[in-house]
């Protein structure tokens, strides 16, 4: 079983395998994460029971300090799009949101990340990466320095119907429009 350490604040949270929580189902795992804002620390290989996506077989749930993401202070933010996903990392193109900066191709080490919903973690997925001081929900006057990657949920679209036409139209416009600098 893979086991990592998370730095949430200045405290270092460690794990004891004896306390490992085993999610009963995919829904449970999601429910834990989404509803309780628990971080799932480690996970195993693909589950046979859920062939459509990677499921954390063994997971250690740790209560995280609840933060108010929307009220981050003194933060830096990038919007990124995943270009490729490797076994231990993923590469993304990121563009600064709140300051002028050229776009960059960046590698994120997977083993330093917490569990990501596999349905969202895919090539082409878009995310916000925010680092900054976040107020604790329980005590807003306390700020914790934190790095957060938040994926956006995409609405499925009818790819076959729209994709090709939109792409060709964009190409045609790019070629035909004269752009003034």
């Amino acid at each position, binding site marked *: 079983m893979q086991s990592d350490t*998370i*730095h949430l604040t200045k405290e270092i949270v460690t794990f004891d395998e004896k306390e490992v929580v085993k999610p009963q189902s995919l829904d449970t795992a999601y429910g834990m994460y*989404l509803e309780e804002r628990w971080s799932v620390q480690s996970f195993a290989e693909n589950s046979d029971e859920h062939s459509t996506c990677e499921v954390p077989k063994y997971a250690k749930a740790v209560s*995280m300090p609840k933060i108010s993401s929307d009220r981050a202070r003194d933060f830096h933010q990038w*919007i990124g*799009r995943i*270009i*490729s996903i490797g076994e231990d990392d993923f590469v993304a*193109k*990121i*563009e*600064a*949101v*709140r300051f002028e*900066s050229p776009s960059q*191709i*960046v*590698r*994120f*080490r997977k083993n*330093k*990340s*917490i*569990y990501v*919903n596999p349905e*969202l*973690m895919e*090539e*082409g*997925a*878009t995310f916000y*990466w925010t*680092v900054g001081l976040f107020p604790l929900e329980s005590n807003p006057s306390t700020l914790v*320095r934190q*790095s*957060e*990657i938040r*994926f*956006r*949920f*995409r*609405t499925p*679209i*009818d*790819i076959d119907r*729209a*994709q090709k*036409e*939109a*792409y060709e*139209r*964009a190409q*045609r*416009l*790019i070629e*035909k*429009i*004269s*752009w*003034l600098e």
Partner: protein
Amino acid sequence: MARIEDMVIDAPLDKDVEFTLLGGCNGYGESILIRFSTGKWMVIDSCVDQQKRCAPLQYLRKIGVDVTTDVVCVCCTHWHDDHMKGLCQLLEECSSMTKFCMAIPDDKENFLYAFGHIDEIQKDQSHLKGALDILDLIARKNIPVKRIIQDQTICQVTPINKCIALSPSQADLNQFLGEMLSEIVTEERVEIQKKRLSEIPESEIVDAEAVLPDEYIDIPEAQVETEQLLNKKKSKWRLAKINERSVALLLELGGHVVILGSDLEKGNKGHGWQAVMEESECLGDSVAEAYKIAHHGSKNGYCEEFIKKHISSECIGKMSTWFLGDGVLPEDEMIDVYYDAMSQLYITSNPARKRKFYVPAPELRKFIKECTDDVVELSNEVGIIQSRLDTSDPTAIWRTQCFGSAYRYEKEET
């Protein structure tokens, strides 16, 4: 009902500069016409009259402007229907136009690709589809396109006759693109990105930690969090923030400053008016003599700090209305706020008329129509607020006139 061609509107004097706001028929839509002292015109956004004709085109023809030679620049401040109606007609007619200006991110290809999916992204934003028709027309007619970015001069006729963008910033546009693309990534798109990645040398790929500011390098582990709306209905915030990426403009007309607020809203830090206040370099200490009030006088469009610092208390304020369904802008409360902040306040149509009279039952309207043709709904007219200033006379002041449904607002004394 008076059509623009039936109105009595004089041509401008030779050295006049002009700042005219048109409000579309039925209180929906706006367009701004700018005359530089050289006699050349700039058109910002478009709306239509009751016959669905391009209202700025009708106005220009009415005052004797040769639109095939004298309109040098057309600008679209943002991709909302009430600012785009009739724009295709305008572009078809203004054959001498040297540029079409719009705010799009640096990554034009992805932006256009995203727009191609606009109906897939957000079905309730179907009016955005009109933007593609405009872009198709621009491509077909080979009209040069200039990207608008904050602090960039988008049109300059003489050193004292120019137009500079106050918004949006490049960073804001990038975010806008990201928001759109997040909805429409497809397998084909991924393949394109992967192909591009294969062309990037490994040395150009930096580690995520290297991007972080120094003070954050002691938190190497990223907390990866999923979108909490996973099982909820799609959120609507993305394209609803188009207004925050609107193009606000700073005009210098023969030495007189005019600010056009478009539909810019106050926004959060780094967006909207806040970004203009904090990031725009061209704004400086400019104080406007005339102001096109932002976002139809809505609360969201009001930025007190900006008004106090950059709008003269002697300013001429102009606002267009927004009547759609049960929605009415401006609200009475905000009309009074702007009235108190400026010496003159003009509105393209009377919001009270919409509230009180324009929403009657269809049966009643049908009955009236059957009885007489003499009763007309005045709110159907285009509203025109025209301001001219003779730049050959140093003592001249703005001469403002209203036509159609437009009127000067006066607060009722209680």
